[in-house]
Each structure stands twice: as structure tokens, then as C-alpha cells.
């Protein structure tokens, strides 16, 4: 099984974990991208949203599980065919949540390019934006190295 290990800077990443955990708590009861299916009947919509929420929470738990004892002792996180799909999806959920909660003041151009003057951002926004970029980097790594595993699963 193909596996990639990524060595991260504890000093850089550890402070971002609080941001991810805060977003994870927010996602327990809220979909990252609310369904835009207005014409569904209420009962079916409720079931639909509940199932999406269950799946989202499972994904986010897999993301949080990356940052376990090995991460804090070695600074390493590992991806393989078993967790690539859930982690890449969880990163999307958390990034959407960060946008909704902390980054709504940034333009779409900044969110798409990832480029802005960090020093000019308020601390909470700067931290959330760094987390947003960090999760995008994880997604890019996974897609670049494990896309075939995801698509074939």
C-alpha cells in the first residue's frame, strides 16, 4: 500500500491545531456546505442533512486522529489509501468552516490565491488563514500522491 509521511514543524503546526479543533466542534452540528436543495420535502431533507452530518463528523475525526502521539513525538503525519479520502474531505470541511467563521472579511481572490499580507491581518484571522493554507497543502499532497487510491476506493 502506498503511504506518504510528512514531517511537519511542531512549532508551526501545533498552534494551528487549536483552530482545527475549534472548527471541528463547530462542525459537529453544522454542515460545512449547507445543502442547496430547497425543493426537497422536509422529512427527506432532514434525513439527508443528518446523514451528511454523520459522514462529515466521521471525516473530521479522521483528520484530528492524524495529530496523535506520533505527531507530537516525531512531527510526522502519515497518509495511505485507508485515510486519504476521509482526510482530504475533512480538510475541505474545515476550510469551509474557517471561511464562514473567521475569513469572511477576505475577498474571494485572496481565498482562491492564498496570497495576502499576513502581517496586516488581525491575529485571529491570521491564525485561521494560516490553518486554511496548511489544510490546503495537506490536500494537495494527498491528491498529488494518493489520488488514484481515492478514485479507485
Amino acid at each position, binding site marked *: 500500500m502506498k503511504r506518504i509521511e510528512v514531517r511537519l514543524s511542531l512549532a508551526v503546526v501545533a498552534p494551528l491545531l487549536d483552530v482545527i479543533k475549534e472548527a471541528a466542534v463547530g462542525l459537529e452540528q453544522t454542515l460545512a*456546505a449547507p445543502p442547496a436543495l430547497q425543493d426537497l420535502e422536509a422529512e427527506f431533507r432532514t434525513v439527508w442533512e443528518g446523514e451528511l452530518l454523520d459522514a462529515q463528523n466521521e471525516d473530521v475525526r479522521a483528520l484530528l486522529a492524524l495529530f496523535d502521539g506520533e505527531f507530537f513525538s516525531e512531527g510526522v503525519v502519515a497518509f495511505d489509501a485507508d485515510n486519504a479520502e476521509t482526510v482530504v474531505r475533512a480538510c475541505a470541511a474545515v476550510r469551509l468552516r474557517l471561511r464562514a467563521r473567521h475569513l469572511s472579511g477576505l475577498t474571494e481572490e485572496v481565498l482562491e490565491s492564498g496570497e495576502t499580507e499576513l502581517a496586516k491581518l488581525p491575529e485571529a484571522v491570521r491564525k485561521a488563514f494560516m490553518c486554511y493554507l496548511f489544510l*490546503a497543502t495537506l490536500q494537495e499532497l494527498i491528491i498529488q500522491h494518493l*489520488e488514484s487510491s481515492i478514485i479507485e476506493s
Partner: protein
Amino acid sequence: MALFGKTQTSPAVRTEPETALAGQWRVVVLNDPVNLMSYVVMVFKKVLGFDETRARRHMLEVHEQGRSVVWSGLREKAEAYAFTLQQWHLTAILEADETH
């Protein structure tokens, strides 16, 4: 429907008058500034079975025009695709296809 750890390809079954499900429906993906282009391409390949070229074409259509019709057909299957795309955190809507 249990969704733990695996992507579902269909939402829960519902019962509804047959007439409400009749006709052709479109699955439309809307743009968002958060999801990466590479991620959207991967999701289109994974969920809709597109090849790389087709997935990139639809991704660019979403990016440049704000929306792309990624599938059309019967309502029940359109719902299944919309559900799965939403599971991947893309914004997907259904539209009645008036051309049929």
C-alpha cells in the same frame, strides 16, 4: 443509511408520487472560492466517473462561469449524485431540465 468512512452513492430512499420524480433533472455544481481546483477535479473523477479532460473542463466552467451542469437524467439518480457531491462539500443543486 450508514456513511462511516466511505462515500455513499445514493441518499436514503424516499417514497413520493411518481409524477414528482418524472422528467429530466440537472445536477449543477456552483462555484465556491474555498475548494481547490485539483480537489474539484478529483471529486468529479471520483463521483461522476469523468476522465481528467472532462473533469478539468467542468471544473473550469464552475470556476469561470460560476456553475456547471455535470449530469442530467432521472430525478432519483440526480439526487444521488447531488448527495454525494455534497458529501464532498461541493455545492450541488438540482434543476428541472425544461428542454426535455
